[in-house]
């Protein structure tokens, strides 16, 4: 693979590229799922190809091909240069790349059990057992389960001398119970909605999730929601479980700190950001308790945003994003670093596959847990009147990332420190900075989980990426609740 990449770089240089990198990627995945006692999907997929990125005449070009013959690789590199020269016809400035020391490196994400060596039969039996547990609850009308594995191997080579070989394993699993009766459909998911929990781990994750043990409870909760009272409208203190807080971080912190959005590069599709450059180190983003980092390093944990090097060869880093409530950092790349006065990229350029241009993506954007010991139950016990919300059901935010609205699968009214009644259709909404400034408590390390968001979309052509979000349950003061059903 290294030879193929070197061949591409030679052709790019001969054709006039001032910089080039080549990325060969070999991607393998497996998807298993069941629905109401039947196999929903059983599929394997593999994709191998090369993407060549170049700067010529001060502008970018990128070409990718599934054909790895010598002639095709050379043609792909030449095409990238031709495209870059066409780009140069409509440019304002030449591309500037922040300096980066090229390295030669090998890295594989840690795992105990290669998921592709596990028995398909046993995995399907496990999913069918969960399915059976869910449907053993009277009133469950639809049971869905899934298990997913992925192995991404890539070889990155640049004209500056970088030579990096990385392999990453991802495992994900989860399930949902639906209950339809009368004029409503309710749903409960475990361990999270939209495919469960996902991490850069091997098959050992499946055992850690305690999937079968929780299935009956999830089925019972789905049915119980049909008879629960609707979440009231008004201003309440709310407590969010860790998975919902993870998505809140993703949407209202992770996306607005992407420097390409801030600079207008995503204005036509994903949108821009309220975090204009003047807000760096001046904006009070949240309360003193809010500390958020973007950390791609292995020591942060096996998140979907964990790697050794990003896809322009920059080492994984930890960037403080919000420090004691103050906005302190963006997600950056070699091209964008200079705009914030940084001497080096923050190392966040990532691509969905060999056929996509790397763009700025979240790594693991995580809120740090509270320093004082505090469990979720203690947090609830310390709340006089509020609503606890668990597991995302809907999410939406404007294109500058100010106004958001989230719906959750299940809520509980809290009175006098106790859960007094289950609530269905809970939702909350607000303005990003007002919301984060209202955070008055967060649970400690024992409650902190590194959640995976496997399907984050961005870019044109669109790319789907996995991101990580460490979070613990937290409480927010005086939040608008129930707008989702207002007027309906």
């Amino acid at each position, binding site marked *: 693979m290294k030879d193929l990449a070197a061949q591409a770089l030679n052709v790019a240089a001969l054709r006039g590229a001032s910089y080039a990198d080549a990325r060969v990627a070999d991607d393998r995945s497996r998807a298993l799922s069941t629905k109401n006692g039947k196999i929903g999907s059983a*599929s394997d997929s593999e994709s191998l190809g090369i993407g060549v990125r170049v700067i010529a005449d001060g502008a*970018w070009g990128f070409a990718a091909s599934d054909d790895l013959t010598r002639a095709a690789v050379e043609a792909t590199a030449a095409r990238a240069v031709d495209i870059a020269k066409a780009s140069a016809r409509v440019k304002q400035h030449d591309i500037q790349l922040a300096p980066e020391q090229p390295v030669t490196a090998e890295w594989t994400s840690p795992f105990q059990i290669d998921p592709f060596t596990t028995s398909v039969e046993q995995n399907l039996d496990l999913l069918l057992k969960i399915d059976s547990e869910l449907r053993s609850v009277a009133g469950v009308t*639809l049971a869905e389960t899934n298990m997913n594995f992925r192995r991404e191997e890539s070889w990155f080579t640049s004209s500056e001398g970088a030579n990096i070989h990385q392999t990453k394993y991802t495992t994900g699993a989860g399930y949902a119970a639906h209950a339809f009766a009368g004029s*409503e459909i309710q749903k409960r998911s475990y361990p999270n909605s939209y495919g469960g929990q996902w991490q850069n781990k091997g098959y050992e994750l499946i055992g850690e999730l305690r999937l079968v043990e929780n299935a009956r409870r999830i089925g019972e909760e789905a049915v119980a929601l049909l008879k629960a009272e609707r979440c009231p409208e008004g201003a309440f203190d709310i407590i969010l479980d860790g998975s919902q807080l993870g998505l809140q971080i993703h949407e209202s912190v992770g996306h607005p700190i992407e420097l390409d959005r801030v600079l207008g590069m995503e204005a036509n599709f994903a949108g821009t950001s309220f975090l204009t450059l003047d807000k760096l180190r001046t904006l009070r983003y949240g309360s003193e308790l809010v500390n958020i980092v973007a950390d791609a390093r292995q020591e942060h944990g096996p998140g979907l945003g964990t790697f050794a090097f990003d896809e322009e060869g920059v080492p994984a880093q930890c960037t403080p994003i919000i420090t004691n409530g103050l906005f302190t950092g963006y997600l950056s790349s070699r091209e964008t670093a200079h705009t914030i006065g940084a001497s080096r990229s923050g190392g966040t350029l990532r691509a969905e596959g060999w*056929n996509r241009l790397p763009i700025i993506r979240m790594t693991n954007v995580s809120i740090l847990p509270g320093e004082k010991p505090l469990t979720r139950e203690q947090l609830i016990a310390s709340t006089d009147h509020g609503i606890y919300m668990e597991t995302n059901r809907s999410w*939406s935010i404007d*294109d500058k990332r100010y*106004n958001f609205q989230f719906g959750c699968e299940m809520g509980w009214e809290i009175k006098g420190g106790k859960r007094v009644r289950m609530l269905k259709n809970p939702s909350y*909404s607000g303005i990003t900075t007002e919301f984060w400034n209202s955070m008055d408590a967060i649970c400690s390390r024992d409650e902190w989980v590194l959640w995976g968001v496997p399907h984050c979309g961005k870019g044109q052509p669109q790319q789907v990426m996995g991101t990580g979000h460490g979070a613990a349950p937290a409480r927010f003061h005086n939040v608008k609740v129930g707008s989702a059903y207002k007027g309906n």
Partner: protein
Amino acid sequence: MLDKNRAGDIFQRIREHSTADEVEALFYGTNSALTRFANNTIHQNVAEENCVVSVRTAFGGRTARATTNKLDDESLKRVVQASENLAKVQHPDQELLPMADADKSVRATRAVPSRYFEQTAAITPEQRAEVVGKIVSIAKKRDLTTAGIFSTSESVEGIFNSRGLADWHTQTSSEVSITMLAADSSGWQKANSPNVANLDPVALAELAARKAFHSAAPREIPAGKYTVILEPAAVLDIVGFMFYDFGGLAILDQRSFLNNRVGTKLFGDNIDIWDDVGHPLQSGAPFDGEGVRRQRVQLVDKGVVKRLVYARGTAERMKNSEHKDSVGPIEPTGHGFPLPNEMGEAPMNIVFSGPREPRTIDQMIASTEHGVLVTRLWYIREVDPYEKILTGMTRDGTFYVEDGKVRHGVRNFRFNESLLHMLSNVEEMGTPVRASGEESFDMVVPAMKVREFNFTEVTKF
């Protein structure tokens, strides 16, 4: 690019490698390019060539799929084995049907026009840059900044199975999307077509620029229920969320908002909706994921949900279900996704019928006393699956209309609106056009004037 003859040869090699009772191969190939611009600069410019074969094997009620983008003999052998290994370990599903027969698959009600245009396939990076240059010139002339894309592609899609079915589709696509940004406002336009000659990027850029200009200094007006004029892209993006519920499997799963509602009047008398892959403004292959030809199906007639679409297996299951007498005609309609899958089927070539007296957007504005003109909706998600309440935001050109005139730009709204409510309150419609948004697949839809559209919050811009 792969052609049908070569794909047929590859399928024969796949058959030779397989020990399964039945074998199917899907082929997808693309040669695509996209020029992306922002800040009046081409900042990303990409091209891709890729071709995949996806093999499904079946052994007596057990089936699975494996996919590769390597077409050499060793890779084909490996992908067949992978599919067989996944299939063989399953428990048999008595309801799994044999693969589709070649003769029974041809049931189209009308021919699909050619969707391949040499001119589109031949567009070069230089030509795309030239178009972007014109868009940037318009932005600069008006002191605006522009961002967007201009993309072109040619693609193939084919299906072969061991019962002799063999079908093939070639197509080209072209798309322009343009955002114009001013200091505190923006405007947007998007269009696509199999034929690049049908696109007018300069006209789109001028219109997006006018929207940015006229929505400058947006004022905040309170949230509440307003008469709205939704441009076609806004209609497309919001209504698209209901069509996955028009599949038979969604009813069998009891996850559809049409549970117990097929045959009832859910929308206004003026709502007629078809699925029609042969419509001249539609695109895509005329066969489904099992190779069954797509039929033209009327989904909604004068506001009444008339029927659902079916994959072959779903139709058989529905005929034997407790719902069989309450869901209208039950037969395979050529809307199935490749097997095995969890979703079953969905209509993906939606065409709204036009009204007897279509109104232009200007006429809709002229007949509005108080209202909001919406260019585009964004980040739409489902809040309630049975009442079909959706939330989302307005974006890139939202205007206050008063006494028949557009008065000024307004800050963007969040909506929480039921599609049942919205499509029961359509007062006026335009001529349906091919529209393209970002949240749903492309459709042929009209602009709509809707009363009592439910805005619940206002954002900061």
